[in-house]
């Protein structure tokens, strides 16, 4: 669709991933995401959404293909280059990834670790400027007054907002979110997506976000990319998209494959949900 402009935040060509004694999780994926775009990735469970995001973050090596993120060739990057790249790429996890025993503020502060050297124990080991920045970020997600609450006493939606504030500490240029609201109730989901939307627009971030709820994706993204069995089966601007095209992504067709899907499904919880 979009031609690979030089100002693409993400450029993926011919990306395939075959897990050792696993399925072909990604099959010749091509994707270019221009800077500032809000892209939503949809697809059935096991279609390869998380696997694609994990490649963008350099968490797993591809079987073949090319991945470039913010001008860095992820496949060829060394450890240090990757660490540098990750500083610019925010990642929001389905399961939040907060340290429950630490306060909300401490969790947010940990987002700045990439800019600091050496370990940090406790709030006061971070410079005051960073503490202020962290508090501002908590304000942005509407939780400023909860700064010193233990994060495992927050509700799920609040925890995810803390996690978003944490990635803001990175001052990311690209935000990857893997089903950020999948474990939340509809009300908290809407709240979290609102917060996320406001922030990415304000900061002009590029966003790739996988979502299970099609309505959320439609109301939120500029562009929808659908994966099925590791292949891109839909890639369109939201404006000229109709319901049926979206439902196509979730169609269980191709007799040979449909059994595949039902076999893979139960194995999903067991696969390490890294990304």
């Amino acid at each position, binding site marked *: 669709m979009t031609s690979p402009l030089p100002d693409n935040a993400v450029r993926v060509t011919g990306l395939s991933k075959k897990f050792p004694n696993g399925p072909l999780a990604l099959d010749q994926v091509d994707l270019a995401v221009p800077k500032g775009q809000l892209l939503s990735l949809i697809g059935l469970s096991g279609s390869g959404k998380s696997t694609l995001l994990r490649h963008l973050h350099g968490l797993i090596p591809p079987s073949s293909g090319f991945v470039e993120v913010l001008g860095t060739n992820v496949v060829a990057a060394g450890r240090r280059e990757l660490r540098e790249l990750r500083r610019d790429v925010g990642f929001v996890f389905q399961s939040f990834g907060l340290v429950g025993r630490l306060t909300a503020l401490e969790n947010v502060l940990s987002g700045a670790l990439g800019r600091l050297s050496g370990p*940090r124990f406790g709030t006061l080991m971070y410079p005051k400027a960073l503490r*202020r920045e962290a508090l501002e970020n908590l304000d942005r997600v509407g939780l400023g007054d909860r700064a010193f609450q233990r994060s495992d006493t927050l509700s799920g939606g609040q925890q995810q907002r803390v996690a978003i504030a944490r990635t803001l500490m*990175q001052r990311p240029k690209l935000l990857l979110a893997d089903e950020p609201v999948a474990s939340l109730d509809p009300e908290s989901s809407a709240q979290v997506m609102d917060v996320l939307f406001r922030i990415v627009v304000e900061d002009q971030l590029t966003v790739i976000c996988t979502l299970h709820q099609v309505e959320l994706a439609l109301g939120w993204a500029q562009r929808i990319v659908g994966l099925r069995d590791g292949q891109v089966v839909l890639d369109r601007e939201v404006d000229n998209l109709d319901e049926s095209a979206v439902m196509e992504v979730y169609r269980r067709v191709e007799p040979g494959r449909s059994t595949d899907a039902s076999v893979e499904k139960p194995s999903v*919880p067991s696969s390490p949900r890294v990304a």
Partner: protein
Amino acid sequence: MTSPVPTIPDSDSDPMAPEFPPSSDSRLRRRLTGDRIVMRVVLAVFIVAVVWAWRHIEMSFGGLIAGIGDVRNLLGRMLPPKFSDLDDAIRLGFETLWMAVIGTTIAVVLSFPIALGAARNTTPHPAVMAVCRGVIVLSRAVPDLIFAAIFVRAIGIGVLPGVIALGLHSIGMVGKLFADAIEQTEKMPREAVTSVGASKWQAITTSVIPQAMPSFISTILYRLDINLRSSSVLGIVGAGGIGFLMQANLRSLQYDEALGVVSVIFVLITIMEFFSAAVRATLLGGDRTLVGRSVPKFSLGARIFSRFWSDRMKNDIGVRPFDREKIRPPWVGEVRMKTIYGLAFVALVVIAFRSVSLNPGELLGALPDVWKVTTRLFPPDFSTARDPIVDGIIESVAAALVATFMGAILSIPLGLMAARNVAFNRIVYSVSRLFLVLVRGIPELIIAVIFIAAIGLGPVPGTLALAFGTSGFLAKLIADAVEEINPIPREATFATGATKTQEIATSVIPQAMPAIVSNLLYALDINLRTSTILGIVGGGGIGFILFNALRVLQLRTVGAVLITIFVVVYSIELLSGWVRKRIL
């Protein structure tokens, strides 16, 4: 609590278990049969071994009754206890406490890096992991009294060899439990921190350590408890503390004085147990699931301190006002509690070092000597004293077996009487619990010294002392296990019109059986370790040859004894660990 994060499966769980269990029905049946077979085989082997061991150490019912008579006689001469040098006893009691504090501190300082190296998820390299795990296993298998006896030879009599011995031996447990805690932390928070570009060590300090902290604290307090018991007997080999005074009193046949000293030891240990349980309950109340069994639910301390805990909960949930200018943690609830406890602990350590007039520099200064004597243990010399070593270790194993058996026989009724949901009435319950507190408040080696004074040298008094200690220890575990069993089957049995005794036999004991067998194996483990040192006080077993070889500085023979002890203790530990995993 509200976190929807899936709990990461316990890394210690059976690796053979299928990832997707078949229907729960067949799983239940298969597990049960597996349990039963393993349990029956274990019990059969155990009984055969006990019969052999009983004969081997020449235990007999006649001798037993005579022995009990002797002990009664001695007790008669001990009562009433005399406290003519109470000042001295109290001073040495404090010294014992400070030694335990310093020994535990040394252990924590050393265990922390060792645990990071030994835990699968934090180790820098598989080779480092192997070395660290090796250190843990080694230091656990060698009893602290043996370390102490060797170090006394290396750096002379005093507190210093004692605290080094406590520290080194404690690495075995503290390092192991620390590493377990590190391995059991959730992966996701760490990955999240790594994803912002944090380095490996930043991610570990920010996400792994805070998660493992409650477990660390619980372990430290628990170990402090254990080290106090140990440090009160180290004096027997000249490594400082109150044990020396008791030994001296016994030697000069001042039995009433000796009992006075034992009372001081008892008070010290009991107070410490109370405090450590209370502090654990307060500090870790909210993380009870993380610290598991080691936080007693019903302890008096827990009940008293729970008042503070509920206050703290109110403070920690909901909006906590703070100064938006300074952005400092508000001085309420958990922060305040942690700071106060943290400062108190630091103060305790400082006071401890001051009181025994040690400084950390001296500790480091002793290391070259410790190292020198260690190197002189190698290469081990098995030939000079081959027969005594072989006979000694066999006798130690036999003593441990018999003691565990006798302890078990005593502890099952005792444990049932001390379980509040089974005890026939409150008086039985209270008396049994009181008795348990009494037994547990006196270290086994001290009981051994007393029994030997009463009965004479040899494995029989040593074994009896071990059995006595085991009964207290096991009965407590059994009582706790029984208190946790499911009440429903019991009600069902009552409903059929069964009597209380029938009911206990058919529903309580079978339900508590895996826990009982598991604790029995655990007791065997511990008894074997203790029985290797009984010889030091004349209670038979391999400790005797060890102590003799040390006296004449045949260090390479000492090395051989150590290796023998290590091999036997470690094999039994592996074996009992395997069995316990199977049946639990």
